[in-house]
């Protein structure tokens, strides 16, 4: 297969775009497209301060790399979750994140959940009895809380995450199966800032997971290859596999699913008889962060339970 741009040997073939590219042109194409999506969805401007949530995985490190290449004022934030499970998962992901930042001279903020709050994520999940034996919901809650706190405290304008199209399509698929109207209304490449919640953006939301893996490999980004031990067998992975089976038979199925959803949402398909997208928020009396209901936020209630 030949590169559509130069006719050289292609290393990536994107069937949904009918586009094959060589290494050099692929490494140009991804940042160009990212810049296009940033503008298209009004994610942020050239003078804004961006904080990228990095996990040491291929998507977040690639996003950081791309935004840096595009010349944005961008720093990283790594949250140490204290997950070991015999493979030193958190230690290794932190090492790779620190290596990435130091090789490129980039600013990295590190929050260690255990040092900050006295318990690692697996322990928090156990003592708070949230998540039915899986720490994923506790992990998500803690990450959202900490990302917002750091973005706010350190004066960043926007919080960027490395969610790719497979992530977004899997979430959409799950919410469609259960007709979760509230979530179907909210899923978007941009969640605007309001009442103390930082603006959240997903600049990679239109790239397939396979494309981001290719970008990381071809850019020489060393990322944590091992799966989070707790995500094995998760629903999100199951949905991704199902969607990939469809994609295999119908190239572009995942992209169409997601893009048509965005268009339908914009046209108001989910807008009737549901709660408004943006609700006024309260301030948590303990941490001061915005919360949906009056009283302590979910994170502080969990920490209280954990003792």
């Amino acid at each position: 297969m030949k590169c559509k741009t130069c006719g050289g040997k292609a290393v990536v073939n994107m069937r949904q775009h009918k586009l094959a590219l060589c290494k050099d042109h692929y490494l140009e194409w991804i940042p160009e497209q990212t810049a296009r999506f940033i503008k298209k969805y009004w994610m942020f401007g050239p003078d804004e301060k961006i904080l990228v949530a990095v996990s040491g995985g291929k998507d977040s490190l690639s996003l950081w790399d791309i935004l840096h290449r595009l010349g944005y004022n961008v720093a990283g934030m790594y949250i140490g979750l204290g997950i070991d499970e015999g493979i030193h998962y958190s230690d290794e992901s932190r090492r790779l994140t620190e290596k990435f930042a130091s090789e490129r001279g980039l600013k990295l903020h590190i929050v260690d959940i255990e040092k900050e709050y006295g318990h690692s994520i697996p322990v928090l999940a156990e003592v708070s009895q949230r998540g039915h034996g899986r720490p994923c919901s506790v992990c998500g809650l803690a990450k959202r809380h900490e990302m917002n706190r750091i973005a706010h405290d350190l004066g960043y304008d926007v919080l960027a995450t490395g969610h790719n199209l497979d992530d977004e399509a899997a979430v959409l698929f799950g919410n469609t199966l259960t007709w979760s109207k509230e979530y179907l209304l909210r899923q978007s490449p941009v969640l605007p800032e309001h009442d103390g919640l930082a603006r959240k953006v997903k600049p990679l939301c239109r790239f397939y997971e396979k494309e981001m893996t290719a970008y990381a490999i071809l850019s020489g980004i060393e990322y944590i290859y091992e799966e989070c031990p707790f995500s094995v067998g998760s629903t999100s992975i199951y949905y991704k596999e199902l969607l990939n089976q469809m994609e295999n038979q119908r190239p572009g199925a995942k992209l169409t699913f997601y893009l048509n959803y965005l268009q339908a949402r914009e046209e108001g398909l989910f807008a009737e008889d549901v709660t408004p997208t943006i609700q006024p928020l309260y301030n948590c009396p303990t941490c001061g962060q915005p919360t949906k209901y009056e009283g302590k936020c979910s994170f502080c209630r969990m920490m209280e339970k954990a003792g």
Partner: protein
Amino acid sequence: MTVKIILRGKEYEVKAGMNLLDALRKSGILPEGVIATRNGEMILEDEILVEGDVVRLVAVISGGSQ
């Protein structure tokens, strides 16, 4: 006349002479979920595999909380 395919430590063997796409199908591996490398270089699905090739697959799916 075999080609070795390795995914997360598991090995598969296919006949030389077929292309990567057929080799993946034969091994029951969904092409959408992997990137193939040979001698450290990424290869595409139309690549013909030859005797002695070792194809290492990089799994692309990750998951967890949003």
